[in-house]
């Protein structure tokens, strides 16, 4: 048997296996479209057994929700890598085994629409179904819309800034209250931190598993650039701004030697190093600190966050992204409404579900981080969420004040983002691992490949 067959069999077997599991939970045919009747929906991303606290909270929420709506039954499904793994998600989508209400990144809209798996829900979504709907940011809604058609509900968002290790700043003689504001200052601070030795990188960055392209994009946004043209048809990073991004990194890596020798890092690699106290600074969202603490043995008190650095001044933009839920095509009206009620309860109500800070505080889940900031600043939901967060904070809010109080304009990720990121990984890896790599050549190669990927996607 050839590799093709093996791979395909493995993929299909995985999808088929998952399909059987999900089919067992399928609700097709056992619901009625009449809103007063019993209705069942499957939802994904239930925490796994090892996440004891999270699973307990989830089950409690399902139980409370079903008490509130006795005619709705929630069937929870645990899926591969708990929703945060693009290949798992693609397999489920391609295999047609997504749940009735299914999780996706904001970058997945195109892929979901191409698969024909999602239904348009514009007519169903309003303030009656989701009481905070009018307070949710328009940009987040746009990430799940095409034109005036809505396909999904945003439930979490993030934007990026500069995370830095206060301990290492102190050891390097830097002022942790006055972190770098520009890429030039980042470079200087990185040099000083790297002199501490012991394998500590002053600044660290990604270059594999699509995360390199993601960070290139974030750093390009900070310079005022964009990865694709406004119409989304052509690459737009092979220019002076794109060159500055790569040249900054190349200078830090090889001229200053301030980025450490271990490269080809992807998400978990960098956070593992950060958790071990080996990273002075990196670009990330506030919830990166949550991962550092809960998954990589770091400490909250070591980390603080500043706004995204800019080139020669304040950043002109920062990358924003997030997640949300789509509805599987073919659901009845009652199922869609039940799904909306569930999302409203678990993801979009202040004081409930993901915003239940009273419950999160004693469980040592972080309260007080400036994100998600799904609600429009100044809106009722924003104020209520903020008040509750401040009252129950268990992280030092001051450590994130510079980031929260100096917002940078958020620029959301482009369509086909994951395909673009996969290509840009190559440019990032070249610059960070090969001292002889040419910034111009790498950008040109990446531009050709991205243009090809965009042309293929447009066909």
């Amino acid at each position, binding site marked *: 048997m050839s590799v093709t*067959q093996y791979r395909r*069999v493995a993929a299909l077997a995985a999808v088929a296996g998952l399909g059987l599991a999900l089919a067992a939970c399928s609700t097709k045919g056992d619901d009625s479209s009449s809103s007063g009747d019993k209705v069942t929906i499957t939802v994904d991303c239930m925490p796994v057994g090892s996440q004891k606290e999270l699973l307990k909270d989830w089950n409690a929420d399902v139980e409370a929700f079903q008490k509130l709506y006795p005619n709705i039954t929630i069937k929870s499904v645990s899926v591969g890598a708990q929703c945060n793994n693009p*290949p798992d998600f693609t397999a489920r989508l391609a295999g047609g085994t997504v749940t009735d209400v299914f999780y996706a990144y904001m970058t997945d809209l*195109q892929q979901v629409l191409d698969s024909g798996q999602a239904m348009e829900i514009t007519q169903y979504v309003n303030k009656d179904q989701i009481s905070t709907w009018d307070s949710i940011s328009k940009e987040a809604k746009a990430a799940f819309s095409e034109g005036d058609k809505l396909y999904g509900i945003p439930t979490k968002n993030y934007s990026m800034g500069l995370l830095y290790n206060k301990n290492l700043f102190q050891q390097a003689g830097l002022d942790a209250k006055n972190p770098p504001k520009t890429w030039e200052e980042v470079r200087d601070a990185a040099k000083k931190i790297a002199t501490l030795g012991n394998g500590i990188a002053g600044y660290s960055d990604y270059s594999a598993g699509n995360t390199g392209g993601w960070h290139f994009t974030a750093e390009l946004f900070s310079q005022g650039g964009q990865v694709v043209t406004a119409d989304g048809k052509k690459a737009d990073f092979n220019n002076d701004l794109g060159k500055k991004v790569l040249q900054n990194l190349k200078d830090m890596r090889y001229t200053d030697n301030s980025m450490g020798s271990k490269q080809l890092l*992807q998400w978990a690699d960098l956070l593992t190093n950060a958790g071990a106290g080996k990273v002075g600074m990196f670009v990330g969202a506030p919830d990166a600190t949550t991962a550092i603490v809960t998954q990589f043995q770091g400490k909250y008190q070591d980390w603080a966050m500043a706004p995204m650095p800019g080139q020669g001044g304040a950043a002109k933009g920062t990358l924003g992204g997030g997640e949300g839920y789509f509805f599987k095509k073919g659901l009845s009206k009652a199922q869609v409404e039940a799904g909306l009620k569930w999302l409203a309860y678990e993801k979009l109500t202040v004081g409930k579900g993901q915003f239940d800070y009273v419950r999160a505080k004693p469980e040592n889940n972080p309260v007080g981080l400036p994100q998600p900031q799904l609600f429009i600043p100044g809106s009722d939901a924003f104020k209520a969420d903020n008040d509750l967060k401040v009252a129950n904070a268990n992280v030092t809010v001051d450590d994130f004040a510079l980031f929260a109080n100096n917002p940078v304009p958020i620029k959301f990720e482009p369509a086909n983002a994951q395909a673009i990121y*996969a290509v840009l*990984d190559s440019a990032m890896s070249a610059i960070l691992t090969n001292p002889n790599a040419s910034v111009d050549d790498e950008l040109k190669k990446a531009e050709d490949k991205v243009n090809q*990927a965009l042309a293929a996607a447009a066909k």
Partner: protein
Amino acid sequence: MPSATVAPSPIHASPPAPTTRRTRRAGGQRITNNLTGYGFLIGAILCFALFSWYPMIRGVVMSFQRTRRGVTTWVGWDNYERILQDPSFWTAWKNTAYFTVLALVLGYAVPFVVAIIFNELRHARGYLRVLIYLPVMLPPASALFLFKYYAYDPSDAGLFNAILKVMHLPTSQWMQSTSMAVPAMVLASTWMNMGGAVLIYLAALQNIPGSLYEAAELDGAGLFKRIRHVTIPQTKLILSLMAMLQVVATMQLFIEPLILANGAGTQDSATSVAYLIYQHGFFQNDLNGAAALGVIMLLVLGGFSAVYLRLSAKQE
């Protein structure tokens, strides 16, 4: 003629029953007698059909289609054209071919040499067999993580770099180097898989009649002559089979780039064809392109298999 002297068998002596009736009855009898066996066979055939043949056919069909907005259309050779224009396409084939050739040199020859050495030993052969097989018992992902984080650490703290430093040799960036990525993958892969090949070669070597070696020794043959004139000819069949399996297995290079290089590696230096299929299918939202690339790979590997079958038929 001897056959003329042989008495007719009782079967021939009695008048033969009508052929069709006898065959039908005998066939029916065979089916009844082997009902359990056929039951197992049907199960196996169904499993192959469902998880092997159907996906393969489906893959070929998908390679000529494209799905947009849930609507699937026939696009002819479009997916193939697109895949052939992918700048990583030839790089992936080049890396895969390089890996296969290196793996043939290392992964094919080294286990054979090790098996010969083990076979020549009079003591401790059993212990060494266990020791050499131990890496095979490690899950491949665990073994590769060991290489990734300890052996191939590009700093001086890495195991291999520390050894090179002690020997006053230049250190390497290993997986971060465009020139070392493929050899480093071959090294790890050989270490992981050598045990199984050694045991197969050992079994073949132990089947060679000792009298052949004794005769060779009486004729004054030394170790190398014995290997050349006895060992290799006597194990030719298993050697050619293993060579073919090695080519097919090494061209499936996937988990090594995925784990050791976190994907494509530096400037695509670790991209393999199988990884490119995965990248198109699962990262670039291009399942049809991935299917086309899969079919191309299927044809290439099918070509290798056909050549092998032809050669072995000639040898026979």
